[in-house]
């Protein structure tokens, strides 16, 4: 095994651990809506939410990096360049995440000065990490990009997938630099901040997961490289074509020119079109193999990725993307519902799929089977779909009572929060978050014991 692949295993272990922290902080965050004085004076809701959202970003990033470190040596036939630096930075990354989490939990707030920005919190949603940690993320991502580009240079060859990946890593790093400037004009600040958030999630990350899924497809189903690469180019072009200017669908209530609303609505309304193509592609691939594979968990999670992406990003996004609806739905639990479903479908399912592929290799399993993965697959997906349904109902109430009828006043906000449908929606979300958490526990148990339980191994291949 290459050192890069050993590093990948560490990244997957860290990703699954941070996934657990995200799940627990999400569960606790959802309980604040039921018991308003929950952890009063200990941890405020906004800190718990910061932990939930930032761990989401970190575990997905770690999952992406683990996937690339796993596939890269096999793709280019050599050890990853600069692997020593990558190994050291893995521990720096983990330590920094732990320190930042401790600062959020125990320090929470600072004075309104530069020192707080550097040491406690940069204060911008999703990228709250203090400036020292944000600088660390830049260093880690630059080294990661060097690992990929340097390996290509050292190998004196590349592949279509790796070329797309290299091109993608440049905007991925440059966009993160938007996390740094403390712009005093709030409209200008939010205008640029959305570039970071939207163009990471709906552009560069989409390309990244497209590359990872292409590499995984070749390994899982033996799909020929030419086919995978041809489709990667088509799908990346379509997703970027609709995703980049879809940026405008975030520009509500922040003082940006109104033409952005039309541009954003138009381009994001086109987003379900390529996603439908991906669903048809998934059915074709699965049907061509007659759903026969040596790794059913990986195949099922990959199918969940295609369908989850279409439903979460496509269907849930289409509900709210036209400006007439978005005007009222923006920032309500309706968008939270869309966010949960889309992140899960587009990214989380894909990483879990790669994880099962990796487990098959490192445990020398000829066939990956068993019952536990089915339970975790069912509980995680049922919990997630249930949560998004409950959040959708709560979001309808907010858009209807608080926004459209009440006109977004403080009284209207309170009316929305006290509405029986909203309250019941929040209770249902918490209960279904428990189901999701149970699914996570089973997933971890399966990952830890796969291949070590008799029922999980139909046959064991000779060690290679």
């Amino acid at each position, binding site marked *: 095994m290459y050192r890069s692949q050993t590093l990948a295993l560490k990244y997957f272990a860290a990703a699954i651990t941070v996934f657990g922290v995200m799940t627990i902080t999400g569960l606790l965050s959802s309980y604040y809506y039921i018991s308003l004085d929950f952890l009063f004076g200990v941890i405020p809701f906004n800190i718990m939410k910061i932990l939930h959202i930032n761990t989401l970003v970190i575990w997905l990033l770690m999952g992406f990096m683990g996937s690339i470190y796993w596939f890269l040596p096999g793709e280019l036939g050599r050890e990853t360049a600069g692997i020593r630096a990558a190994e050291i930075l893995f521990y720096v990354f983990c330590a920094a995440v732990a320190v930042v989490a401790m600062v959020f939990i125990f320090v929470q707030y600072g004075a309104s000065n530069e020192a707080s920005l550097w040491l406690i919190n940069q204060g911008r949603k999703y990228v709250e990490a203090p400036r020292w940690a944000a600088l660390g993320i830049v260093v880690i991502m630059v080294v990661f990009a060097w690992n990929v580009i340097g390996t290509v240079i050292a190998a004196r060859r590349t592949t279509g997938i790796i070329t797309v990946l290299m091109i993608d890593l440049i905007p991925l790093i440059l966009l993160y630099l938007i996390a740094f400037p403390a712009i005093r004009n709030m409209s200008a600040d939010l205008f640029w901040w959305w570039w970071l958030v939207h163009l990471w999630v709906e552009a560069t990350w989409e390309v990244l997961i497209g590359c990872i899924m292409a590499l995984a497809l070749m390994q899982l189903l033996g799909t*020929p490289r*030419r*086919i995978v690469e*041809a*489709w990667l180019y*088509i799908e990346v072009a379509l997703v970027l074509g609709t995703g980049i200017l879809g940026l405008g669908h975030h520009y509500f209530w922040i003082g940006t020119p109104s033409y952005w609303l*039309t541009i954003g*609505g*138009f381009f994001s*309304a*086109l987003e*379900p*079109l390529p996603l*439908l*193509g991906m*669903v*048809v*592609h998934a*059915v*074709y691939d699965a*049907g*061509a193999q007659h759903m026969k594979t040596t790794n059913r968990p990986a195949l099922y999670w990959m199918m969940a990725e295609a369908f989850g992406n*279409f*439903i979460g990003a*496509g*269907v*849930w996004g*289409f*509900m*709210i*993307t*036209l400006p*007439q*609806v978005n*005007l*009222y*739905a923006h920032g309500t639990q*309706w968008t939270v519902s869309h966010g949960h479903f889309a992140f899960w479908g587009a990214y989380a399912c894909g990483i879990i799929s790669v994880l099962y592929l990796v487990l098959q290799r490192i445990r020398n399993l000829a066939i990956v089977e068993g019952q536990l993965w089915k339970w975790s697959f069912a509980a995680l997906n049922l919990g997630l779909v249930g949560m998004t349904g409950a959040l959708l109902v709560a979001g*309808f109430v907010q*858009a*209807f009572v608080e*926004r*459209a*009828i009440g006109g977004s006043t403080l009284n209207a906000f309170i009316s929305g929060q006290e509405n029986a449908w909203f309250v019941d929606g929040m209770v249902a979300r918490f209960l279904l978050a428990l189901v999701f958490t149970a699914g996570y526990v089973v997933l971890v148990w399966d990952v830890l014991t796969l291949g070590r339980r008799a029922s999980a191994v139909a046959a064991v291949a000779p060690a290679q």
Partner: protein
Amino acid sequence: MSALPTLETGLLLGLYALLAGVWGVLWALARFRKAASFGRSAAAAYGLHTLVAVVIILWTPLGLGWKCLIVGSSLAFLAIPPITWRLLQHTHDNEKVGA
């Protein structure tokens, strides 16, 4: 847009996109299974999708431009599964010939 049409329009738009997905999946399954029932189900799903599109156009307060987008998207949704399928077959056939 007033309060109730906001919810109704949002729900109709979601249903519109969902039925497009159902159409695509059933169409692809019909090609694989070569079963008439899947073909009929796919046609029914697209019929329902068209019905929802008509309701959106006639009943919701969306502007004319957005209604045109709905019509255009419906036509694109109709074409995407067969075009995707043909491209997939084409690339797979080329690969077999190349091998």
